[in-house]
């Protein structure tokens, strides 16, 4: 029983990492661009499918970098031509637009790569368990944890110490002022959107290695990411990561104890958080209230 619980919690942690990476990108875009990017999930699926296509040519490690970058190129085009005209308008419109975009992209992925799910080939040395007693700990899962830790740590360091990071944080606080101080906020927002899409694409590849590829993988992972943001608190990037890990582990444990409720438990946690602590675990008080 104990082994089962540890195993399930670890499974949940891995899924939670995917939620956290997604929520982190969503949160960044929500903060500076003021947009709920509903197409985030399909950008993630796109990253995974691109990696699936280029992996045979460049190998797993290079596809881990190249595929998200290709997704970022598309993301920047979308930001420039579709989302930029909507800045400053009712948030309803950008949400509807990304809604429509998600439908189109999912349909195109289905048309290009087929509607049947496919496995994502991992290098063999990553796919074997490290030891007999810890059978669930494959090299791949360690890689997922390490990469995510590195990327998240790097992102937080960049936001703290680099010029663009400081500007992104300042823009979150007061966009008008930094615009008046001579920062090109259009470029800044585009860069921020690109970073968010990169995180989505990366999450997609990592998730594909674990869960396989399917055209609807995006829409099934984006909803928990919303919940991760709400649980962690809007406006807090650290909160989004924390929220993702919490609901991932909770979902993993529920899958072992009462499998029928493994999705519903995520939303139950959200409801409880909204009642007890409406601004979320690390959220700022009064933001968007």
């Amino acid at each position, binding site marked *: 029983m104990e082994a089962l619980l540890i195993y399930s919690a670890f499974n949940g942690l891995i899924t939670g990492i995917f939620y956290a990476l997604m929520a982190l990108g969503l949160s960044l875009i929500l903060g500076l661009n003021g947009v709920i990017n509903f197409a985030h999930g399909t950008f993630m699926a796109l990253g995974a499918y691109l990696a699936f296509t280029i992996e045979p040519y460049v190998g797993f490690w290079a596809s881990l970098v190249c595929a998200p970058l290709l997704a970022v190129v598309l993301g920047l085009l979308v930001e420039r031509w579709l989302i930029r005209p909507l800045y400053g308008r009712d948030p309803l419109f950008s949400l*509807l637009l990304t*809604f*429509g975009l998600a439908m189109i992209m999912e349909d195109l992925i289905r048309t290009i790569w087929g509607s049947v799910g496919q496995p994502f080939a991992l290098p063999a040395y990553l796919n074997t368990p490290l030891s007999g007693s810890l059978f669930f700990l494959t090299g791949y899962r360690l890689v997922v944890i390490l990469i995510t830790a590195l990327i998240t740590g790097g992102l937080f360091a960049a936001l703290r110490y680099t010029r663009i990071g400081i500007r992104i944080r300042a823009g979150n606080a007061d966009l008008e002022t930094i615009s008046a101080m001579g920062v090109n906020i259009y470029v800044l927002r585009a860069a921020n959107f690109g970073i968010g899409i990169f995180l989505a694409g990366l999450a997609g590849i990592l998730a594909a290695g674990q869960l396989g590829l399917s055209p609807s993988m995006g829409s099934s992972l984006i909803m928990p990411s919303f919940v991760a943001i709400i649980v962690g608190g809007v406006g807090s990037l650290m909160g989004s990561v924390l929220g993702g890990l919490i609901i991932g582990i909770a979902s993993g444990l529920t899958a072992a104890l009462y499998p029928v409720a493994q999705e519903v438990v995520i939303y139950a946690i959200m409801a409880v958080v909204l009642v007890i602590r409406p601004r979320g675990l690390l959220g700022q008080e009064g933001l968007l209230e």
Partner: protein
Amino acid sequence: MRRPLAAACIWIALLAVPFWLPLMGGYTDLATRALIYAIAASGLNLLLGYTGGLSFGHAAYFGLGAYGAGLCLIHVAPSLPLAILAGTVLGGIAGILIGPLVMRRKGIYFSMITIAFGQMFYFIAVRWNGLTGGEDGLTGFSRVPVQIGGHAVMLGPERFYYLVLAVFALVMAVIWQILRSPLGHGFVAVRENPTRLRFLGVAVERQIWVAFAISAFIAALAGALNALLTGFASPDNLGWQLSGSFVVICVLGGMRSVWGPFLGAAIFIVAQDYLSSITQNWMSFIGLIFILAVLFFPQGLLGFSRLKASR
């Protein structure tokens, strides 16, 4: 003078649908579906367009209405009015319960929470196999005859259309009355200036809650009718794509107008029916409608024509 005339023309056209629609290559059930979507979108618009609460999860209440009606027919009693009532109450109560959790939020945050709660009901329907039929949806019920004055009347497509039309007229009348009442003016005030309203001593959150609950009731009513139309309640009735469709229907027709959601629903349903008959990629085209509506018709078709008329 022009407005009552236009409204009269619309009602006459609606009453005559079973006569002229087949001539144009349509079928009566298509018009019934358009009316059902119009009911749901009109209910949503009370919250979305008039109160300013951007709910992206209203398919949840629509779907609960559908499941409520189906379950009532299967397990409780084979009675059409009772089934409609059961579905409406089930979805409405869910709206009353969810309302307090979202009413303090604003703008996109409100949207995000409503999307997430919508998804909760979706997963309950998919996972509670024994009750809901899981992924396959709830089947095994159909429109039973209605007892009118001792006669059992079977509702064929035409008669059911007139039933839905009557419900639609009732819903429009209720919404019209609400918007003329102090409650309706309160809704608009919440959208326009909540701060001032708060200083005037009005409980803004409670206004939003009331609007949320009313719109959930109306959406659930539409969902119950939809289950009776198709003889089927599916998890898709609760899904995010349908929620988004309701919103785009409101935007397409015009959110600041009582007739906007009706117009949007008619266009949306006809487009969906046509597109799904000519191409497999109809989802892309529906998505394209979303994007075009946002970029070029943010005021909606009715708002657009009014803008032109006032110039």
